[in-house]
């Protein structure tokens, strides 16, 4: 049986006890799947788990609290579930995690770069996986791209390709793409220096349209309708369309995610204007990892910013 079929049977086996199972189904175009809410066998038509399974289904769990829900989970999705459970934002017994070995997911922006002048990603008529390649039907003929060149950055540094907390795991566990996340990307970025980075964010954030897709795509951003960005008192951000306000919102998001972000990258992926907002969260994740040895979404220990030690072995705040 293929992984797809095995997953389908696992879903059907679990469905009687669940209000629905969230996976991925046909999207509006060949390069994109859509989150799929499976309530019966008929919904399984077009179910897919694999290279196009980009969305993080854990996103929907807090809003579905009170009924038992299944999700098909990549390793990173399962980390979101783990973190939500650790923070008691959802109940573990209300989630049924169906894991499978994830080999990475597509990054449409990289496809766009790979297609270069052949066409826009929105003109691709079909996508076919062929070994280590993807083959795209374009108006100018077939374009073959190496899968590794069009896979999301997060997948290249993935240390948890298998849903570690799965209730059911389908398929053979996969070796991680990297032994550990070295945060080399953040070190490299930071090395550009504060002056250059300030100019970088001024340019990037000037594109921001304040749609808050980054926030709403984040599985750990549970405040939703009660976000402080919408508050008038205190008045954290104004309605002006200027860089300081827009950047400050990204700071709000990053600070509220410190010690909680599992690095699923949905914020950055969701941004319609391609603003690399994950960098801010990863900078804080690196800091938390270095100070407290904590990786969000793995294990059940209390997140470091919700607790303290009287003597902090890694903090030297009295040195000046």
């Amino acid at each position: 049986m293929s992984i797809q079929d095995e997953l389908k049977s696992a879903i059907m086996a679990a469905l009687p006890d669940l209000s629905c199972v969230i996976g991925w189904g046909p999207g509006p175009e060949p390069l994109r799947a859509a989150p799929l809410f499976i309530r019966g066998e008929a919904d399984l038509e077009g179910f897919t788990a694999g290279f196009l399974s980009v969305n993080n289904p854990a996103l929907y769990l807090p809003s579905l609290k009170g009924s038992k829900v299944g999700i098909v989970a990549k390793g990173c999705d399962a980390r979101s579930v783990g973190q939500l459970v650790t923070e008691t934002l959802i109940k573990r017994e209300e989630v049924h995690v169906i894991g499978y070995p994830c080999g990475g997911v597509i990054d449409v922006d990289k496809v766009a770069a790979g297609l270069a002048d052949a066409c826009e990603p929105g003109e691709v008529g079909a996508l076919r996986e062929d070994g280590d390649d993807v083959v795209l039907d374009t108006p100018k003929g077939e374009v073959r791209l190496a899968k590794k060149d069009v896979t999301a950055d997060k997948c290249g540094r993935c240390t948890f390709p298998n849903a570690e907390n799965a209730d059911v795991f389908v398929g053979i566990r996969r070796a991680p793409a990297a032994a550990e996340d070295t945060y080399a990307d953040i070190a490299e970025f930071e090395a550009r220096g504060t002056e250059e980075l300030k100019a970088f964010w001024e340019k990037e954030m000037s594109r921001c349209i304040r749609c808050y897709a980054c926030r709403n795509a984040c599985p750990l951003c549970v405040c939703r309708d009660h976000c402080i960005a919408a508050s008038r008192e205190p008045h954290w951000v104004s309605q002006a369309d200027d860089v300081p306000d827009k950047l400050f919102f990204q700071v709000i998001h990053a600070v509220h995610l410190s010690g909680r972000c599992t690095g699923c990258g949905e914020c950055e992926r969701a941004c319609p204007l391609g603003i690399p907002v994950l960098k801010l969260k990863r900078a804080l994740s690196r800091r938390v990892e270095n100070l407290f040895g904590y990786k969000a979404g793995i294990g059940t220990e209390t997140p470091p910013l919700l607790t303290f030690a009287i003597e902090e072995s890694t903090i030297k705040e009295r040195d000046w």
Partner: protein
Amino acid sequence: MSVLEGKELRIVGFLCNWCSYGGADTAGVGRFTQPTDLRIIRVPCSGRINPLFVMKALIGGADGVLVSGCHPRDCHYAEGNYYARRRLEVLKGLLPVLGINPSRFEYTWVSASEGQRWQHVVETFTARIHALGPAQAFAGTTGPANHNRADAMVS
């Protein structure tokens, strides 16, 4: 260093009510001279200090931000400063990637009796900020003919 000697910079200080604000007061009562760049905001406890307070000040163009609370084991509310220590220490990791010099932010502990230490803290931190010079505020409006809000406020 002081306003008399050169251009004064804008440093925002968040001080806990019970120790550091008292320490600053002690320094004042003891007539320990200090640079005048610091604008003090009194908060109940260093644990009350949302890291976003610091960020709002820095992104808004403050040249420096200083946080001071009770020494560990001395918090009026027993453990507020322990939480503050973790939060503020983590926050330091965000500044360089945002394009803000991390030296513009610091936190420390000063008790109500430590007037002299307060003087030392203010002098040291102010000297550090003066060495960095004034911060460049984040700028940029995008709307057509949408004149800058800050400019509008000035006019």
